């Protein structure tokens, strides 16, 4: 602002209509910038997810307890989500179900992302044949309807936790693998990487020093954005009866059982677990999107 004092009379604001001049002042007053918003959102999202996970751990017992003296209660203070026809606390069941979903999501998404990373890098660095094979494989998996493949793998692996995790993991890696392949191919053409090679640097050095810092953000964001998909698909196949077994209070099971009672007016059985599922998914999604914005240099200055 020093210069402004030198020519006070001439400093006319031309583009006053839009954000130009007044925003400049505004920016300094408004210390609250985009990045801070993102950090706060991240903390809220992670806090919520952590609470669900920890809650699920403590609700393990409570979710299974049946008590016919309190069956079919609508939501009230002691049972915020109501109880079902066996007198089970829906709140405990929902939290427990969600925590199972999150664990499955984390496992499947991590597995899937690691697979995507390896295949993407192989495809981009191991020559044309490897690239052709991997690309063909990606197209193949993408070509089959998602749900169908998921159900097939899940059933083939004998349903249950293992089946669901494997099924979700084996169907979700394609888009991330394609992204990483493209990124590596592009990086390989960069002048600074070619120069590093001519400076006698080993492939390992180039990979660690030049490639990883570019790929890591992409990878982390891809990983986080895989969670919501994994969770939704887990609940869908469980809902359809191909996933987890009925004893487990998974969200898919809760929802499919609730369907039978919906017509009798017990709306709370499906509503709250459904909302909680959506909340969880949205949480992961915003976390991922915000991380992307934080790490992506193109949108850093927003």
């Amino acid at each position, binding site marked *: 602002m020093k210069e402004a004092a030198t020519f006070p009379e001439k400093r006319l604001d031309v583009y006053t209509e839009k954000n130009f001049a007044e925003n400049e002042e505004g920016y300094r007053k408004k210390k609250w910038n985009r990045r801070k918003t993102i950090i706060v959102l991240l903390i809220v999202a992670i806090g919520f997810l952590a609470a669900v996970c920890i809650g699920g751990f403590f609700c393990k017992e409570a979710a299974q307890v049946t008590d016919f003296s309190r069956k079919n209660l609508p939501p009230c203070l002691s049972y915020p989500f109501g109880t079902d026809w066996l007198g089970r606390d829906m709140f405990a069941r929902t939290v427990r179900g969600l925590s199972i979903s999150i664990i499955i999501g984390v496992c499947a998404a991590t597995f899937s992302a690691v697979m995507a990373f390896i295949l993407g890098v192989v495809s981009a660095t191991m020559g044309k044949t490897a690239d052709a094979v991997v690309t063909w494989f990606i197209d193949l998996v993408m070509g089959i309807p998602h749900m169908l493949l998921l159900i097939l793998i899940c059933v083939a692996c004998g349903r249950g936790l293992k089946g669901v995790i494997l099924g979700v993991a084996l169907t979700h890696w394609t888009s991330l693998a394609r992204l990483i392949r493209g990124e590596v191919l592009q990086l390989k053409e960069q002048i600074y*990487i070619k120069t*590093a090679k*001519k*400076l*006698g640097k080993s492939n390992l050095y180039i990979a660690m*020093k030049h490639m990883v*810092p570019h790929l890591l953000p992409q990878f982390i964001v891809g990983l986080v954005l895989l969670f919501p998909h994994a969770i939704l698909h887990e609940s869908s196949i469980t809902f359809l009866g191909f996933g987890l077994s009925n004893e487990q209070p998974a969200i898919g099971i809760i929802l499919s059982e609730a369907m039978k009672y919906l017509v009798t007016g017990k709306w709370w059985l499906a509503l709250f677990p459904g909302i909680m599922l959506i909340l969880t998914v949205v949480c992961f999604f915003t976390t991922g999107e915000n991380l992307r914005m934080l790490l992506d240099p193109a949108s850093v200055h927003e």
Partner: protein
Amino acid sequence: MILETRNLSFRYENKGRQILEQFSLQADSNERVGIAAPSGFGKTTLCKLLAGYEQPETGEILLDGKPLQSYKGYCPVQMIWQHPEQAVNPRLRMKSVLEEGDQIDPKLMEKLGIEPDWLNRFPTELSGGELQRFCIARALGKRTRFLLADEISTMLDLITQSQIWHFLIEETQKRGIGMIVVSHDAELVERVCTRVVRMNKQ
């Protein structure tokens, strides 16, 4: 040391335009060879071939009689690019950029006017002229024998251009590093080079 090309031909892709045809050139360690040619003649391509970034379709590139490809590891022929901002990793601090070179003499920084403070910055926090100084320092490693300069001062202001060229002439002369200089500026080439080669289309 002698850097030479014999009957070099090159084109991108299989059916692409022939960029170089039967091109031969010989350069000695103690000369600075300027290359003058109209645009679209493949001056940049020639540099890339000479530094081993591209492989020729036919013909050979020899350094001291041995094919350039036979030099493993650090390439004794280093290239400086026109756009320094593309030649450094935007996510690395300038310190790391310099470390990539081959045991860079700290005195070089001083001679190039690189301030110690710049070493802790990222490339986006420096101007083009400042970045180009880093790229030059990086290319002047201990084992460098030939330097290729592809329009390295085109995007810089005249004073920076003069600074950089005075430095390069002195440094390469002292260390016996040969240079091949590509520039569209005939007066600059005249000033800087000991010999000028004109490429003409057959």
